[in-house]
């Protein structure tokens, strides 16, 4: 009986160690690997979950501002791979659970934006590249290439 109890205790410890190492390492991706992945025909979805201020101060090109609260983010149900850009010290688990419910495989950018910057990769300030319909007046020139449509200003 005592032997069985010891055996169960040992098994439990093994399971705990395995779970802890899985949480720490599962889906973690370094900056170089992410850079290479983004350069493929099927890149992952990038979610910046550091909050608005941090996002606007500079993020990985193409990253979406998902806000800080996993419960306040509703993804489409297309699933696939997603890489999270976390603020320092933030636990990924609530995000992982939220996104897994919609069919996503979650990866974490190891070292966050600090590691991305340190690796020397491009940082985009979303406010500069932001596109909001209706905010940019533009004109279509008159010409053959435009099928002879008249010049117009859109706003």
């Amino acid at each position, binding site marked *: 009986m005592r032997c069985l109890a010891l055996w169960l205790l040992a098994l439990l410890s093994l399971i705990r160690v395995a779970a802890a190492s899985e949480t720490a390492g599962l889906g973690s991706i370094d900056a170089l690997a992410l850079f290479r992945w983004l350069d493929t025909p099927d890149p992952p979805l990038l979610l910046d979950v550091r909050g608005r201020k941090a996002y606007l101060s500079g993020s990985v090109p193409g990253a*979406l501002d998902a806000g800080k609260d996993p419960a306040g983010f509703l993804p489409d149900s297309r699933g696939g791979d997603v890489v999270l850009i976390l603020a320092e010290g933030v636990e990924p688990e609530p995000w992982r659970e939220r996104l897994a419910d919609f069919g996503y495989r979650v990866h974490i950018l190891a070292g966050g934006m600090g590691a991305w910057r340190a690796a020397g990769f491009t940082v985009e300030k979303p406010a500069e590249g932001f596109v909001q319909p209706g905010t940019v007046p533009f004109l279509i020139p008159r010409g053959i290439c435009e099928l002879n449509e008249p010049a117009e200003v859109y706003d």
Partner: protein
Amino acid sequence: MFQRRLIRWLWLVTVLTTGNVTAGQITAEEKENQPCAECHAGIAESFAGTRMAIAASERFRRQWQDRESPDYCMNCHAPSGGEGLVCADCHGPGPHPYAKLDVPEVCARCHDAPGENTVRQFRQSPAARKGMNCLDCHLPDKKSGVDHRFEGPSVSGFLDNVAKLRLNMRLDESRGPTAVIQVSHRAGHALPGGTTGRAVWSVVKGLKADSAVAWTMSKRFGWEHHPVQGWLDRTLKPGRAAVLELDGLARGDTVRIRAELKYRFRAGPLDREDPREVGLDAVELGLP
């Protein structure tokens, strides 16, 4: 048997040493003066169906004259005259054997001309970093050496799976639900490639419970001409997703939103019909 072999061998030596050929053969000079299609019928036939072969069609020339457009248009539309490109425009004047083409340099002469930056964008693309070139996508059977169809967006199915929309929603306390949209594509150059006359539109609609449209917001990706700043490149860059954020979604009894991505063969606004328009992607998401 031996005699026949000997005769053939002697004939070959004679031809190679004197340049003389027997009846039915052609001289090098005759060869250069022959229309390419006489020997390369398959290539000529496949190229004849391309847009490049009719880049200076009668309709084009009429518009070009009516608009008093510059002569240099023809440097690309019909460098040798006629109704479009011909073999020598890309392959050079010869003689045989023709040098292997340097792709994409030979394409850049026209596809980086004013109003285009297709090859320039290609050089910065994941496709170029992988060692691909224009022909990998635009000449489907390039290994055959015969295929000259040069497929592009005009060919049905060519744009399948080329672009992808990701539609998400962020709940901001101050702004209400905000659509957070990512637009990405797999083209080896900017999208749309080609001339300023093409555009990709992102169209986001608010839908009511009965699927009636409550509102629409659209964004155009393509070349723009700003009254002060001149030409602006607002195309979708290769290997780099574009981000759109739209708020004010919960109005007009909207219960869900639908995002669509459209490829159009005309530069102008969406309310002008484009019979060749191609839907690239569409996705819906319910409002929380």
